[in-house]
């Protein structure tokens, strides 16, 4: 049962990573990166590392997404490559 949970999270993790790398809209990439951080947080919580999961939820999914968006707002929104 817990293995199923693991596999679901890992599949979504890979999908989120690929989307956040490939999407042209930087704002969308930042949001998907936040989702990626939250999925890693779930994975850590499931492995029993609750303190690390808490840190990841606050820093990875929370503040760093906001910081990335704040930086994007000072750049052009779409990537050219």
């Amino acid at each position, binding site marked *: 049962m817990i293995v199923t949970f693991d596999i679901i999270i890992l599949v979504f993790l890979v999908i989120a990573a690929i989307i956040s790398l490939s999407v042209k809209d930087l*704002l969308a990439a930042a949001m998907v990166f936040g989702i990626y951080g939250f999925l890693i947080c779930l994975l850590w919580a499931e492995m029993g590392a609750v303190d690390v*999961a808490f840190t990841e939820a*606050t820093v990875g999914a929370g503040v760093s997404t906001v*910081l990335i968006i*704040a930086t994007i*707002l*000072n750049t052009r929104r779409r990537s050219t490559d």
Partner: protein
Amino acid sequence: MKAKIFASIAVTITGAILLYAVTDFPNFGDPRSPANAGVGGGSSSASLYYIENTYRDTKVPNLVTAILADYRGYDTLFETVVIFTAGMAIFAILRVLRNEDAPSAPDPESTNRTIDGDHHRIIVGITCRIAVPLVQIFALYVVAHGHHSPGGGFQGGVMLGASFILIALSGSLRDALARFSEASYIRLASLGILIYAGVAFLPLVFGRNFVDYGALRGLLGTEGEEMARSHGIFGVELGVAFTVMAVMFAIFANLSTRGRLKGGL
């Protein structure tokens, strides 16, 4: 295009090597792995010592907090200093201290840039005004209750900083800076380091080692050295929370306004 092909080849090779290395790892949660059982599975290991003795030594049920703030106090002290340095580096690189911009530039306060261009933000504003105190109370709980439950100074500090970022995002950066000004976040970031280093330094006065909080027993009036260590951990967590909160907000304020602290998101 050529660069992309080379990059993907490099990434594939590195990934293959990493996957190959993973097969040498012990199984997840294996009690006989070197980290859990010591080298060779025989000698007693550090982690076994922590699991068996942390509560007896420090009266702190949360192993992670006890290890981070007490057994590995040096580590956490300099991690906090790293965060402080990062904040000061961003301040030094980005902050524009000249008051006037180029004369032709429009006043940043009047061009109210937002993500979606929507100026009617009543619902978002009111919701965030209700949410911010709840976030801050929960953050204080996380800081103070880090001994017993997951959390501690770092997580609580990030949440406190995030609550001020929420004010800046839902209202304007000016509102957030009215509550948490530049002078106060710089002071608070330094104060956090000072609290941590001060609590860590005090045992030296009593002739004990650095970060050996057990020596604070007489000062704190606790029954045993264990409770003194527990209180020492709390003092240290408080310092971490101050520094992290101030630095998180400082980074956001400087990044979102290119160091002008005007306008912003």
